[in-house]
């Protein structure tokens, strides 16, 4: 079942849409060439028809609220309902960003307390809560590092990024104007320290790392890496995408990271993806603090205020104070869990990943030695003799009611299948997932054509991704209309 667009459903027996009064006076005398020749062809539907349209669309959606979502590297955590209750409290939900700070003391206190909690978790001195997503956090951190070097009279033009990195790392570095230098992974899946040594120089502004890395492996030599990087005067940046493995167990700041980004929409249970928006706070050690985006939230004599008097600040990176609703949700989660609870969450996330990994031994290829951290990367290359690819495995999982793991990432593993179960899933769910993978691998051997025809029972089958990429249709047009 698919759903037609409202434009396609439109019928003349329904009244035209009733638009609210604009609330402002119409602009006087717009030039004729800017005026429409005819009224816009807005869809005409009755109110129940509109309601049913969107309810049906919602029923076609797939979300963490309905089923298992092991999308590797994305930490698709359960979003607790308590978070939503807190975010809907009128004192948070009905604020206006231009309100006098004296009238929003509770909101400022929440930001102040959230900053302290995240500092404790990440091992940093101060945090900006402004960035609106993970990549935005990366960019903000690199801008601060750039400002730090410039303030010392050093123009450093390169940023080193591992070949297993999230694609956003080189993209953020390039957007900041850095030249991206790639460092290789060693055969054990960790940063090749010899190659790093060769790439380090006084041109390097920073090394960007995620730990555990995208293969789900802890970078054991992190202290040595940190020493090497700092010896050249460069800074160490932590991509917090995989922080869910470490809460309460070890801290990026203690590993030597100077700037640490965190995704509230991953590690701290705020909605991820379409349900967002995201939030990507960045923490820094003392020598980067002067460069934090302004304003910061400060406390004096028990009152909270916004401090914009920060002469070395890189400036504002987001309108107002970031995605405040997400800050309320993350703070609620941290308070509800407490330190012990967060530590247990990370331990359970690691346990769940290792359990699934163990259950898939002999089913898929496991190119790196375990144990893993909160996620692991398998390879579907063992299905190549049947002409079956990671993509076919992913489609088979959709047919069996699961969201597919991340496929074809990281790029250094052929036919990669990246699984991140997260800590809240029951053993029964993990078992059902492992059984589904086994069933698909068996089907690949006995009837690969059947597998290639899946999914069969979903609203749509195999989409023509190539045609969609080559000839994207980005908007609906009335018959006969073109650009």
């Amino acid at each position, binding site marked *: 079942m698919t759903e037609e667009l409202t434009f396609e459903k439109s019928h003349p027996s329904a009244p035209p849409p009733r638009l609210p009064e604009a609330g402002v006076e119409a602009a006087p005398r717009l030039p004729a060439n800017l005026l429409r020749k005819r009224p816009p062809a807005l869809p005409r539907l009755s109110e129940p028809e509109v309601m049913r349209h969107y309810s049906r669309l919602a029923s076609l959606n797939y979300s963490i609220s309905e089923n298992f979502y092991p999308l590797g590297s994305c930490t698709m955590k359960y979003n607790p309902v308590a978070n939503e209750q807190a975010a809907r409290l009128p004192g948070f939900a009905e604020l206006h960003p231009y309100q006098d700070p004296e009238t929003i003391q509770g909101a400022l206190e929440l930001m102040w307390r959230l900053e302290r909690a995240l500092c404790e978790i990440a091992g940093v001195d101060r945090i900006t809560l402004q960035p609106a997503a993970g990549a935005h956090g990366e960019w903000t951190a690199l801008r601060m590092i750039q400002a730090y070097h410039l303030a010392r009279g050093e123009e450093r033009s390169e940023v080193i990024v591992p070949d297993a990195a999230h*694609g956003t790392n080189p993209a953020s570095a390039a957007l900041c104007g850095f030249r991206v230098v790639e460092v290789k992974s060693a055969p054990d899946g960790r940063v090749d320290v010899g190659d790093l040594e060769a790439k380090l120089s006084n041109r390097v502004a920073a090394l960007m790392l995620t730990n555990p890395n995208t293969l789900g492996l802890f970078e054991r030599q992190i202290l040595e890496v940190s020493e090497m990087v700092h010896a050249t005067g460069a800074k160490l940046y932590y991509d917090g995408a995989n922080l869910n493995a470490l809460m309460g167990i070890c801290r990026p700041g203690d590993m030597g990271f100077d700037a640490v980004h965190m995704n509230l929409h991953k590690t701290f249970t705020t909605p991820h993806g379409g349900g967002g928006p995201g939030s990507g706070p960045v923490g820094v050690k003392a020598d980067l603090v002067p460069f934090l985006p302004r304003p910061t939230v400060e406390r004096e004599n028990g009152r909270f205020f916004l401090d914009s008097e920060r002469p070395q600040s890189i400036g504002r990176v987001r309108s107002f104070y970031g995605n405040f609703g997400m800050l309320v949700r993350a703070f609620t989660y941290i308070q509800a869990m407490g330190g012990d609870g967060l530590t247990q969450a990370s331990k359970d996330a690691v346990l769940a990943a290792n359990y699934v990994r163990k259950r898939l031994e002999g089913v898929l290829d496991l190119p790196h030695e375990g144990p893993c951290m909160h996620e692991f990367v398998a390879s579907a*290359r063992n299905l*190549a003799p049947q002409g079956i690819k990671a993509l076919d495995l992913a489609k088979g999982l959709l047919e069996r009611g699961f969201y597919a793991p991340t496929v*074809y*990432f990281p*790029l250094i593993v*052929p*036919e990669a299948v990246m699984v991140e179960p997260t800590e809240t899933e029951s053993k029964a769910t993990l078992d059902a997932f492992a059984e589904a993978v086994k069933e698909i691998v068996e089907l690949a051997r006995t009837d690969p054509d059947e597998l290639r025809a899946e999914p069969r029972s979903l609203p749509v089958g195999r989409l023509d*991704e*190539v045609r969609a*990429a*080559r000839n994207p249709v980005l908007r609906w047009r009335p018959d006969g209309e073109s650009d």
Partner: protein
Amino acid sequence: MAERYYTESHEWVQAEGDVATVGITDFAQSQLGDVVFLELPSVGRMLEAGDSFGVVESVKAASDLYSPVSGSVVEVNEALSDNPETVNRDPFGAGWLIKVRLNGDLGEGLLDEAGYKAVTEGQSH
């Protein structure tokens, strides 16, 4: 026909006189899957061997393209912008990417057929 040489990053190069034609290998296109977009340099761009000269994007991934040679770009395969699938269909022929007027000889460090085969055998499934 001049001999074709290869890079470890899966480009090929073939020189006729002082102009070298550059593309990606059949192995590269098979690993990438269906190519949907190519970002290629402008004519006149100066390249050093090892410089990134563009991006090839498939449904699976986007990868940088690295020049096997030093010189200036004298021609770009414009036909690919409408038909990127040509890179999949005929990577060593109609799917060529750029032509470069060489600064001197082909550099050292390029692989011959046998050397490149050894590289791909190490990486294939």
